């Protein structure tokens, strides 16, 4: 398990691994939206929670199709499936690696983008906390989607179509935490619901994703 995590992280950081793409995309969203919406700080501050969460979600989506497809093409997935490692563990490790190279850096970068979008002061801790709690769900839900389209050539667009609806509850509660936090309202309910979605996804989706991969390899 550890070996797989280290290999995936190494691959992500080596040339062509795609680390930083998601971050650059996230940054791009924060630049593009004000250019489209206009520079009024008041409006930007109001929509900042939503933009930051939508940006993080799309950035996560960007690198999902590589998660299993590359290993499928070069035969590694066959070899992992016949190895003593349980497929659920493989899925979990892959999702963890995805989170470490996208979700976690996105969370770290988010306060800076919040600044650029004029997010009100009280919102920052909730922004970081909600992303920290919510991005693991994005990674594991994404792993499930990627597992479904493993055998499909050029499955990128299909993957987005499958995964985006599954992302909606996470998005709604995550953005709600930040919006309420920014307005100084109590955030407990959406925060707990967000945590519940993450916990539930982490607990159950590895089994569904592993089943999907086994089906694809048949």
């Amino acid at each position, binding site marked *: 398990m550890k070996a797989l995590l280290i290999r995936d992280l190494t691959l992500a950081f080596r040339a062509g691994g795609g680390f930083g793409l998601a971050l650059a995309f996230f940054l791009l969203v924060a630049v593009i939206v004000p250019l489209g919406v206009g520079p009024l700080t008041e409006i930007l501050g109001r929509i900042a929670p939503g933009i930051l969460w939508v940006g993080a979600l799309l950035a996560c989506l960007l690198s999902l199709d590589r998660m299993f497809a590359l290993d499928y093409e070069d035969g590694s997935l066959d070899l992992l499936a016949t190895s003593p490692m349980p497929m659920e563990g493989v899925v979990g490790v892959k999702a963890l690696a995805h989170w470490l190279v996208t979700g976690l850096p996105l969370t770290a970068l988010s306060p800076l983008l919040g600044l650029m979008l004029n997010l009100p002061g009280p919102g920052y801790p909730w922004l970081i906390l909600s992303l920290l709690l919510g991005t693991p769900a994005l990674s594991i839900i994404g792993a*499930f989607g990627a597992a*479904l389209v493993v055998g499909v050539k050029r499955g990128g667009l*299909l993957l987005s179509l*499958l995964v*985006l*609806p599954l992302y*909606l509850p996470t998005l*709604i509660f995550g953005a709600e935490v930040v919006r309420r936090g920014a307005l100084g309202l109590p955030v407990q309910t959406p925060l707990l*619901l967000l945590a519940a979605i993450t916990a539930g996804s982490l607990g159950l989706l590895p089994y569904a994703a592993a089943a999907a991969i086994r089906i*694809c390899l048949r």
Partner: protein
Amino acid sequence: MSLWEYANPARFMRLTERMLPVLGALAVLTVLMGVIWGFFFTPDDYKQGSTAKILYIHVPSATMAVSAWFMMLAGSLIWLVRRHHVSALAAKAAAPVGMVLTLIGLVTGAIWGQPMWGTWWAWDPRLTSFLILFLFYLGYIALWEAIEDPDTAADLTSVLCIVGSVFAVLSRYAVNFWNQGLHQGASLSLDEKENVSDVFWIPLVIAIVGFGLMFATLVLVRTRTEIRLRRASALMSRQRRA
């Protein structure tokens, strides 16, 4: 003879061959009866005026749009547990029907809301939930289309249907939560059935039954189509090998 024997394609074809004309005729009859009764012979609502007549198409299609997903879920579970091909194909056949009914629910809902909201689209929680349901249907159908091997496609779409059901329910609650306080009272609730009197209620029930029968008819026809295509491709691959 157990019910499961109808999962044999040939037996299913023979049974539905006899059933379809009756079912189809019943469906046309009840749909027309419910809708015509509702459209021509019900009074206007004291609050909503003649827009209440949209009820007789909106509510049945919305009801069946959700029921269709549940039927697909049942079909997927039966396929995963008992490996009956007809069950998987019935789920596949139901998806486009469910999607169109969802679309009808969305369009009629938006049109109904227009005079109240003053706009063609409002992010009313109910409409938003249906929009999300529509996306789930799209994804499910797209996954069926994308995978070549039929058994693999059946397996993967079944897994998607189960996981999707959980997330669809979550989305429903998330949307309710997200929208609270945005339209406070100003929005038209499409859910004011409590004070609907019998005058409206009876034709509505007939229309719902009619839409249900229509759904069943369409799904049966489409399942038969899918079964024929499966047999055709099975024969094809045999010929190719011979």
